[in-house]
């Protein structure tokens, strides 16, 4: 991790570590259930019946950041799982299946009571089935009905007119699946699910995302970027996993206030900023230093990633008369927002313009096939909008094939020949 400039970042990291320690205590000492879930599953439903939920992607990022991924991934290779299979969504599984191969962070994942995944890409079904088998735990599947109609400017429609964003049959299907999930969670926890509490929680989620929206606005409009992208991500991720909680809202506000103070005081992440960069794709968790590597040499700052921007645009839902439908409308199209044409390309260009982006680095993931789709549309759309693009081929958790020096040299050349001309 690059050096931290914000107090909020330190608080977010400490919170996550403590949260996980509390989880292990609850599971091991108090024998309470927890759930292991994909990042796009609605965490709110679990929290409202007091079942803590661990995100697969968050855990993979932690394993990679602790430099343990190569050990587990070598064990996967040795077991005959070919290298074109997705490593990001399966690193957590590997840390369980091949536990002896590495040193999983903070004592490793305890056995969950339930695993839950949306069946977006084809591999996730397999990974979660294998994982559930390994743990001897139950798997709850949320199937992903495909979108036949994708209206323009989804980020506008999603806030107030979210019923128009998702076709009625898809929305009804996801609502009914979430209702079944709630029944299952009630049975596991022994607690009754409170729909008013869901509405209140979603209102808090809206408030939290409005705060992130304000932070995004500060970053987009400040003369120089006030907060590094890596610190944006740490603060957003710690908050999103417990979104709508009192801590999350308080932390989002503290983060906002600190960023605003920096803007008011004219403090920049990289004083003398010359180039504003955006990163499109999941984070390069095994080499986060990459994102600050071009500050000293070129005054080039990563300003934007999806992690902060997606919060307000993807999560805010106004009009919560039917909170489950609102939640379903958010859940139904995550992949389409972020990876698929026309939505992902349209949003990337919109965000690039809003943030005065000078150059975009687009991840070409080596093994994540779903995340790899749509990127040619994004690259072309950005170039057509006058924003130079540099594709970066990498795996976000697998450092074994990563040429850190070569990638940095490519970026330097890109900055010198296309961005800072």
């Amino acid at each position, binding site marked *: 991790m690059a050096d931290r400039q914000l107090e909020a970042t330190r608080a977010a990291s400490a919170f996550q570590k403590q949260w996980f320690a509390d989880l292990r205590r609850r599971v091991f000492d108090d024998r309470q259930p927890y759930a292991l879930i994909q990042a796009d599953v609605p965490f709110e439903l679990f929290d409202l019946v007091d079942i803590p939920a661990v995100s697969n992607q968050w855990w993979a990022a932690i394993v990679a950041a602790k430099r343990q991924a190569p050990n587990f991934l070598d064990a996967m290779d040795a*077991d*005959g*799982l*070919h290298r*074109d*299979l*997705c490593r990001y969504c399966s690193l957590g599984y590997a840390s369980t299946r091949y536990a002896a191969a590495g040193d999983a962070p903070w004592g490793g994942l305890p056995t969950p009571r339930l695993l839950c995944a949306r*069946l*977006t*890409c*084809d*591999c996730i*079904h*397999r*990974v979660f*089935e*294998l994982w559930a088998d390994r743990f001897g735990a139950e798997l709850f*599947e949320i*199937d992903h*009905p*495909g*979108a*036949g109609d*994708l209206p323009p400017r989804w980020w506008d429609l999603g806030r107030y007119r979210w019923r128009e964003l998702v076709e009625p*049959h898809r929305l009804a*299907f996801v609502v*009914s*699946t979430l209702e*079944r999930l709630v029944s299952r969670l009630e049975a596991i926890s022994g607690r009754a699910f409170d729909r008013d509490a869901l509405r209140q929680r979603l209102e808090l989620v809206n408030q939290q995302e409005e705060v992130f929206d304000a932070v995004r606005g500060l970053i987009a409009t400040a003369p120089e970027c006030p907060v590094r992208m890596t610190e944006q991500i740490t603060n957003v991720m710690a908050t999103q996993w417990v979104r709508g909680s009192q801590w999350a809202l308080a932390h989002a506000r503290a983060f906002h206030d600190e960023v605003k103070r920096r803007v008011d005081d004219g403090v920049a992440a990289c004083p003398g900023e010359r180039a504003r960069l955006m990163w499109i794709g999941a984070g390069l968790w095994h080499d986060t230093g990459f994102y600050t590597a071009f500050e000293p040499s070129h005054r080039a700052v990563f300003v934007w990633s999806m992690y902060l921007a997606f919060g307000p645009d993807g999560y805010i839902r106004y009009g919560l008369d039917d909170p489950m439908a609102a939640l379903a409308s958010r859940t139904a199209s995550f992949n*389409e927002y972020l990876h*698929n*044409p*026309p939505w992902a390309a349209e949003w990337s260009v919109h965000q690039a313009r809003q943030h005065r982006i000078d150059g975009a680095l687009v991840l*070409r993931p080596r093994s994540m*096939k*779903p995340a*790899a*789709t*749509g*990127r*040619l*549309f994004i690259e072309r759309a950005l170039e057509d909008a006058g924003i130079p693009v540099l594709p970066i081929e990498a795996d976000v958790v697998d450092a074994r094939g990563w040429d850190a020096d070569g990638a940095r040299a490519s970026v330097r050349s890109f900055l010198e020949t296309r961005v800072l001309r």
Partner: protein
Amino acid sequence: MRESHVVTSWPSVPVEIVRAAGLYPLIIRGAARPTPAADVLLEPGIFPSRLRQLVEDALTGRLAHAARVVIPRTSDADYKCFLYLREFVRRGVTTAFAPVVLFDLLQSRGPDVPAYDLARVHALLGELSSVSGRTPTADDLRGEISRANTARAVARRLAELRRPVPRVSGAEVLPLLAAFWEMEPDRYVETATEAARRITARPRLAGPRVLLAGAPVDGHSLHEAIESHGAVVVAEVGPWGSGAAGDDVRIDDDPVAALADKYRADSIGARTPVDSLRRLLQTMLDEVDAVVVSLPPDDAVFGWDCPALRDVLQARRLPHVCLREDPYETPTPADHAALDAMVTAASRMQEARHG
């Protein structure tokens, strides 16, 4: 390409619905043919050959006169292909292109899925009827189901000639079995019955019997490569060979529901639940001497089953080999060497078993 063709990317769109609407199914398959126009617009390593061929056809105007292009939800790559095709049209990348439709038949086990699927089959029927101007009655649908079931029965008889000892090579029989999907049922019954009659009169084929597993293949090039080493491919996990016919579709009061249930349960692809595939595989392993697992570069799914499959095959002492090339590419010397070693080992074990 005729205006009465409904083009699809995988045999998981009910052909009975297509025919009842007065149209003809045409399923695009993989090929060795280059796809230069598609290669510019599709990311490498994600889309299987059949989808690259389909996009190539779309971009070069070959699908301009189809009644509809119906992309089923068989895999994530199919779904992405649907979204890409829509976007190519929206952006004017291709203009001479038939309307593209998503057939979103889900295959997971949730209790909400059958109703969702039933509505999707009704929607498909409505869409195709609107194109042809022919709205089939329930009796029309039952008639198509009955005709297809008769063809299924003949396809099953043909497949029986591969077991327990084959009388026909895999490379020869795969096109006959695959024709079930596109040929008019009455003509298929006639053709396949005649083929079965001829094959029955042949002597049994020697050589180890091979099961082709992994990502389903939609052509016979890999069969030819395997059989060039003296083996005989006697079964495939997939909808084109052994799985073409499957069980009959039930004939009852609700033919649309019967079709939705059949295609949800029997369509083999990347979204088929793993326990269904495992059960299918187990029934096939009793009558083979070796297994080839095809895992092309676009595979995101079937590779996950490899460690468990390897354990099963080792327990059964079945030689096996895993091939990572696209089945439409010429196998590498290393692949040929691996196939040769597998066939040799299987032959030795076959001889030991039979003295």
